């Protein structure tokens, strides 16, 4: 089921009313079954993949719980079962076609007649998210951060909880299971906060993301050799806003829907385009993923022991040990290549990951210098620089091929092809408007909103006007014509 549909709004209303009407015990079952229904509205047959991943890790974690910590090899073997099943599912559904295509390309270039068969495989919605959650659960039990859950229904609900099932935030078991067990009693505050977040999310999705999509699709459909550098930068900005509005919208709705049910999900975004460094960007963008990557990939690769499991904070946790520079750099580039590959089975995504790795690496080198810069440089130099770097990074993410990406990067880097306007004038206008809107919203929520909250005589009418516009536009634009971009990952 997708959030920007009338079906979901009706489904959610029914689930919420039932949830709060029921005694606390059956609420588990209601949420678990409604989560399965939510998923089955896409394709019921793919529930088996979700359940296979969940059941495997349930039993693996139970097994780990019963094996004493001294039996390291036995525990590792059990952990390997979880990793094999989950990464195997990911490989089959998400990466098999990529490897088949590349191997066949290799065979062709070598002049051999061998060809691997192509299988018609549909990527199950949310597989990248729920496999990461089940892996993190087993890893946390393995590391001793949490105890394995006895009741399958509680654990199953952690994996399948519908607000965050398809596109995150990627939650840790420790953060959700306890809340599910405690089951808070009804508070009006849950509803008001939850509905507010859902309204924000629907507004960002149907009013902004879906309407920017047309400009982005049109721009990227142009042969890249016909574009100028300015066009490429504009398209990078536009897609950057589209994907932000789209994904942040999903996260808003997920957080809001969970909140209405009295459950907290960690924030996934915090004005990422205000970041003053790429490291800062990744503390603000898709925070749950960057935190996951930090705890289960980057830190282990540097040889650092992970002491706590949390889906907050993003990248940049201080290392408790002192790995060699070589090892840190290897971990950095390997992590980002995998991070890119997680987003999609195409070389363009790996390139996107490495692009980020390069800039974070450069930042590491410049860190000693940066502390000596005057304070104002952060706002007036680092912000626009980071914004530009972050927006241009979306080019490989959205381009059709690595070849197209290099042509587009070339247009920016070559002074002779930098200037020129080959897109419709409205494309530049929309990109500029979005930038003003984004920074304006940040300034509003940072400086003006706290003041309005303290002055309700002014704040209430403004809130009323804001909600009126948002409800009106959501009603007019609500159409499930575009899925959320992150569904495809």
């Amino acid at each position, binding site marked *: 089921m997708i959030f920007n549909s009338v079906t979901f709004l009706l489904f959610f209303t029914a689930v919420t009313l039932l949830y709060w009407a029921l005694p606390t015990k059956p609420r588990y079952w209601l949420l678990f079954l409604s989560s399965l229904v939510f998923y089955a509205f896409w394709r019921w047959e793919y529930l088996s993949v979700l359940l296979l991943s969940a059941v495997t890790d349930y039993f693996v974690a139970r097994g780990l719980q019963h094996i004493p910590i001294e039996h390291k090899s036995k525990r590792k073997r059990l952990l390997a079962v979880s990793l094999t099943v989950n990464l195997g599912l990911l490989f089959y559904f998400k990466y098999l076609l990529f490897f088949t295509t590349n191997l066949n390309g290799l065979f062709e270039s070598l002049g051999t007649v061998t060809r691997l068969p192509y299988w018609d495989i549909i990527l199950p919605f949310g597989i990248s998210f729920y496999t990461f959650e089940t892996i993190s659960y087993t890893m946390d039990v393995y590391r001793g951060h949490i105890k394995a859950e006895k009741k399958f229904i509680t654990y199953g609900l952690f994996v399948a909880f519908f607000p965050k099932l398809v596109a995150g935030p990627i939650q840790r078991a420790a953060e959700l299971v306890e809340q599910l067990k405690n089951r808070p009693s009804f508070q*009006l505050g849950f*509803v*008001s906060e939850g509905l507010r977040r859902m309204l924000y999310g629907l507004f960002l999705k149907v009013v902004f993301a879906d309407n920017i999509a047309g400009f982005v699709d049109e721009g990227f459909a142009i042969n890249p050799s*016909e574009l100028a550098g300015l066009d490429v930068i504009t398209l990078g900005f536009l897609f950057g806003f589209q994907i932000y509005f789209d994904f942040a919208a999903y996260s808003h709705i997920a957080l809001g829907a969970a909140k209405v049910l009295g459950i907290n999900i960690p924030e996934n975004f915090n004005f990422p385009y205000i970041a003053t460094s790429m490291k800062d960007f990744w503390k603000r963008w898709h925070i749950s993923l960057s935190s996951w990557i930090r705890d289960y990939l980057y830190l282990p690769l540097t040889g650092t022991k992970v002491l706590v499991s949390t889906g907050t904070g993003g990248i940049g946790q201080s290392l408790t040990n002192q790995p060699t520079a070589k090892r840190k750099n290897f971990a950095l580039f390997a992590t980002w290549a995998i991070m890119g590959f997680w987003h999609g089975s195409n070389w363009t995504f790996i390139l996107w990951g490495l692009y980020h790795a390069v800039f974070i690496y450069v930042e590491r080198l410049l860190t000693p210098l940066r502390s000596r810069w005057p304070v104002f440089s952060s706002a007036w130099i680092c912000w626009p620089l980071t914004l530009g770097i972050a927006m241009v990074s979306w080019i490989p993410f959205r381009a059709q091929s690595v070849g197209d990406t290099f042509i587009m990067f070339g247009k920016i880097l070559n002074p002779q092809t930098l200037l020129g306007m*080959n897109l419709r004038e409205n494309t530049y206008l929309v990109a500029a408007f979005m930038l003003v809107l984004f920074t304006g919203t940040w300034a509003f929520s940072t400086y003006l909103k706290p003041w309005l*909250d303290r002055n309700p005589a002014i*704040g209430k009418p403004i809130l009323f006007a804001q909600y009126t516009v948002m*409800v009106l536009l959501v009603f007019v634009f609500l159409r*499930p014509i575009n899925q959320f971009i992150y569904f495809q990952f």
Partner: protein
Amino acid sequence: MSPKTEITILILAAIAAGIILKFGFGGERDFENAALGTLTVQYQAAGPEGVKVHTIKQPESEIASMLSHAQGSDALVLVLGNSQTHSINQKEKGHVVYPELLQNRLPDRIFLTNSLPNANLQEFYTILNWWNDQLDFKTVLIPVFMDDLREDGLRKDFLKGLVRDEHTIEPELDELDTEWNQILASFQNTQEEGTVSSEGIETPQERSEKYITSWLSDRSEMWRNRPNARGDLFMKLYQWRNQLFGINASTKRKIIPARYDKNLTALSKILNFCQERGINCVVYIPPIRTDVEVPYDLNEYALFKEEVQQITEMTQTSQFHDLDGIIPGKYWGLKASTNTDAEPELDFMHFQFRGHEILADSLEQILRRQ
């Protein structure tokens, strides 16, 4: 703010939004035809006894009528055009457009017209390709508007016949053919309101969404009016943009190089297509209001005309005519404001009935000389 207050505000906001929707959005203006304004009237040419011979969106009934009317004729003329072809400024009773005048003056031929607002040459190429599958044309009239070379791609709304027939350009000679075929193929899968994409199989989500939205459309005028409200909102944005940047009908339009080149390539393909099939092509620079400064960069406009002429002269079955200054200023008119001002603006594209007569005179002479 207490949760109770916030929920109260949210409910009041929803009521206010409902009231605004009910009374604030008439949805009376068609966004595609925004440039026409209210002083210009749309009119489709009719054949003898009112038979339909002119289509804009290619609905099945019009196409069936046109095919039936043209059956057996060996002197078929296809008139392609944009809104100039189906609009009359300050129309009065009895006024018709130039294709109908041509039909009356040259009764030994049958004129079929397909015009679409802001038509680009890529659309002309795909439309011609499709019409050629239906009938054998002797002649094609192709106006090349500099304004429309700023457009790109194909629009599903105006290619309904091609979508119905699942038409593809064959053989695919180059990357452009492939690109247009991909666009045409995408029209087959384009989701309607209430559906989501899912690899061609209807999911429970799609079924339920279709059912619910259709249920709502049957019972709620407000829900039904949503597409019109979207049109109204975009129209307002368009007007505010024009107001903010001081854009009006006289503002100079610069060419967009990539689109310009792509459209001229499409023109070459049209001419080659016609040459291979022995179809005569009349390519002309259409009339524009020249008693005031044209809304183009004059150098770009001169270069444009030169390029179109050069391309046209490369094939033997086509001829070039520059008709841009044939209609005197007094036969043009005004259009409603395109921004938030109420002041009418000069209309450079749509002339009065007398303008249609003058254009028909010129085209008649050209066709008689063939």
